[in-house]
């Protein structure tokens, strides 16, 4: 089967009109397209960086608050500057983009503008026809772009039927990775998992904020996952909430699980290996929200696993069934401002004691600015081994 088309959508800076793009995103994913959604109120630079890292075929922009001629042109210009002009730019803005504007915009390199009153089916058809095949001109001019394209190749190979390798031999991988990371012995591959709604994405983004802040040269890679079914599209929306991770020193890649259960994609292992071999100081991988029995991180590539939990996991009995509690190196009780948080932390502590392993337990409120718990988590993860 052909790999799904990946595109990125966004709304320009100082514009919160997201109703049209939300509708279009929904329509696209129902028709097999994977949409990396960057959100509203976005700078041109952020859009272009994300598009390159995600290696999408095209960028769809929905603009309403005016200044569209300049904004679209800026996106095209930045793409060109980075040598990424194989990524097309299209979009709409209802009646605010006039026919005259459209002519100017197309002259400046915009692929297509959809006027008010266009049926949704026309847009879906356009994307399939126009961006159905990768058209690749020149070689990737930057390392980042090379990495991005390589990740696409890996993903596409699995989509086309490549079989997953058995879980690789730990030793070989470890030595491989050490080669890639060079002098730095602090490089960490950290896996985050936990049930949906526990706040993993927010927690990671807050962690990234701290990591970037603490060391002016740190480079971070993030591999995030969203669920999808074989043959259907997916909304990859983590970037929209991870505001601190939209940074020059962060390489982020959003993946759809493409039908695989357990929180990761068939291509995850290979993609992770590639990232681990690339020059990043931290590689962070986030699963989709998982169930009790999930053990997503069987890969030996991962140095540290973090289980993020919500205080209201139900009765104490439930805890016995959560397999990751046995396997995680660090357990985080997030949303610890909730009523049940103290009881939850105590119950989990007792549960961990049974394991007789040096596991750490931390309480956080990731949504709170400058949360001390997140500081502590950051300390733990940056400790020299």
């Amino acid at each position: 089967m052909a790999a799904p088309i990946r595109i990125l959508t966004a709304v320009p800076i100082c514009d919160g009109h997201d109703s049209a793009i939300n509708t279009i995103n929904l329509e696209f994913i129902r028709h097999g397209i994977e949409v990396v959604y960057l959100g509203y109120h976005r700078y041109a630079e952020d859009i272009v960086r994300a598009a390159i890292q995600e290696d999408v075929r095209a960028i769809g922009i929905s603009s309403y608050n005016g200044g569209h001629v300049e904004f679209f042109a800026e996106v095209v210009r930045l793409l060109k500057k980075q040598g990424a002009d194989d990524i097309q730019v299209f979009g709409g803005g209802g009646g605010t983009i006039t026919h005259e504007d459209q002519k100017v915009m197309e002259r400046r390199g915009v692929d297509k503008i959809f006027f008010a009153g266009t049926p949704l089916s026309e847009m879906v058809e356009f994307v399939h026809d126009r961006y159905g095949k990768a058209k690749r001109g020149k070689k990737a001019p930057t390392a980042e772009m090379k990495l991005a394209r390589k990740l696409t190749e890996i993903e596409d190979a699995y989509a086309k039927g490549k079989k997953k390798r058995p879980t690789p031999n730990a030793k070989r991988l470890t030595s491989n990775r050490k080669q890639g990371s060079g002098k730095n012995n602090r490089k960490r591959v950290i896996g985050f998992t936990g049930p949906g709604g526990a706040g993993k994405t927010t927690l990671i983004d807050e962690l990234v904020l701290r990591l970037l802040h603490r060391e002016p040269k740190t480079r971070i890679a993030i591999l995030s996952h969203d669920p999808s079914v074989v043959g259907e599209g997916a909304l990859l929306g983590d970037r929209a909430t991870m505001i601190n991770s939209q940074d020059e020193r962060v390489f982020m890649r959003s993946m759809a699980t493409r039908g695989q259960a357990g929180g990761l994609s068939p291509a995850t292992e290979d993609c992770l290996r590639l990232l681990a071999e690339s020059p990043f100081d931290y590689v962070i991988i986030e699963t989709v929200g998982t169930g009790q029995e999930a053990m997503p991180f069987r890969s030996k590539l991962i140095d540290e696993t973090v289980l993020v939990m919500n205080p209201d996991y139900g009765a104490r009995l439930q805890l016995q069934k959560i397999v990751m509690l046995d396997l995680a190196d660090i357990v985080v009780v997030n949303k610890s401002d909730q009523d049940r948080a103290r009881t939850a932390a105590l119950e989990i502590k007792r549960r961990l004691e049974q394991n007789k392993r040096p596991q750490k337990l931390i309480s956080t409120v990731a949504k709170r600015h400058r949360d001390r718990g997140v500081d502590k988590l950051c300390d733990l993860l940056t400790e020299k081994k």
Partner: protein
Amino acid sequence: MSKLGRVVEAVENYNRFVLDEVRRARTETKFGQQLLERWNRIKANTPIGRAPTGLPLPRLALPEIDEPGEIARYLLGDGLPGEFPYLNGAYREMYLEPLREEGSYGNEQEKNGHGKNGHSKNGKKGVAKLAETEEPTRLFSGMGLAEDTNERFHYLGAHQRSKRLSTAFDGLTLYGIDSDAPGVFGKIGEGGVAVDTVEDMERLYAGFDMGAPSFSASMTISGPAPIIMAMYIAAAKRRFGPSVVPKLRGTIQADIFKEVQAQNETIFPVEASLRFLADMMEYTTREMPRWYPVSISGYHIGEAGATPVQQAAYTLSNGFAYAEMMAARGIHVDQFGPRLSFFLDCGLDVEYIALARVSRRIWAIGMRDAFGAGTKAQMFKLHTQTSGRSLVAAEFKNNLTRTAAELMLAYMNGSNSCHSNSADEPFTTPSEEWIRLSAHGQAILLDESGIFKHTMNMLSGSPGMKAVERAVEAAILEEFRQIEELGGVVAAIEHRYQRSQIQNAAHRYEEQIYDGTRSIIGLNKYRNANEKPPKVELVRTPRAKKQIQVDRLKQFKKRNAAKAAKALDRLAAVAETDENCFPALLEAAEVCSLGQISGRLQEVVGRFRPMV
């Protein structure tokens, strides 16, 4: 149970109470007799006015009933205009023209000692009061620089007795960003007016007497509302001295919940946004008794694609959540309650026949019975805007008809004030030609036509309207139960409940256009095959103007650099504590730009993390 659960109970109990009273009116002769007498008195005391043709008409229309049970159902279930539960209107009279001739007026509800003929000591009162009433027309405008918008304000207000200015800000201002920030130049003054400093605020309302009773300003801004409010106060003080503060009249939108749910202009994390909002509300409630510090808005929810029922349900539940929040701060409901106001959308879906009427009733019952509020805090004061989303680009002149129909619905629902969109809505900030027509649309309906000016309740209470009322009320209560189940408004927001519901409804709406379930004339029905791109005058801000704004902001910053640094430090220090920040904001607003203030506050409380 959260307060919302109590509201559901209150409405259910009230409906049961009405039914019990209907039964009692039918079975207890004495009670029935009292009701009949009251009913007859109301009818007898209703003055008769005359249309220009000479046709005599009662000033208040009532259903033709003479059976005690039905009278109880009407008086208690609906209420006369201006009476609990306010289904027919928060106030009496509203759009009525003054009585042309001597005639009796008043009923027992008016405690002014009106005699049978309404004269006695207050002889002229009814008439005098009417002459003071203001036009309900409000036109939302903002474009380019402050002086451009000021010019438009003067143009729009030229023929109005009262100056009611409704201000639209540009995207930068809405997001608390300065005009000299990198990467935003193209957005300056687009879609609204650029305001960076107290000096822009002075220019914006130049030539208007900001403290006069005939002046009020409404400001459509929410994320940075407390900062903009502080700038407004600072500007008024600069021009009229500190004594102007308690005289200021107007509204600031400031509603954070609907930003998170629909309009997407939140700039601080929700908790911090609510704290700054409550700080401001505490200040205005105390110092500015005529100011409405929050306009609880459904408009944006509706325009983002929500169904009318979702719109009303989310708006009302947001309102109750604010009431809960203020009560938690120890402020009495009768202090802040009367300063809450509402803003709804009005489109062409059938629900709009009664959406605002039902909302008014639920608000009144909820505030009275779940919050213990007195009369003034029970009244749902409503501003309505006709739907922008219902206006389309194809054969856009049809938008005049759409807006006219919506206006009709808005006034049938007893809106206290109304904005009508211009026909060029799909393309641009309205140009003078179309904005003039939209203002005239309201005048034609209210002044020229006889539909609303002779009789209260002129179009209220048809069997169809009743059917819609019942269906809509039941559906709103069902939505409340859903939200309650998720743990209340704030918890539901965290679950993305309202957002995902709105997005699904928006998608369905577009689907229905293209599958033909919804007719849009000129687009999917009676489409003109030869239609050419329309010729419309675009209102866009030239580069040179944008540059002026950047230059003068830079000068302002240079001039005030030392003072600004101090004011920001003080503000940040207060923001770290639990103290009310608003006084420190007022000081900062004198010498700092919007972006400086919002940036510094974000350092303390963080940035908003958007939801998909």
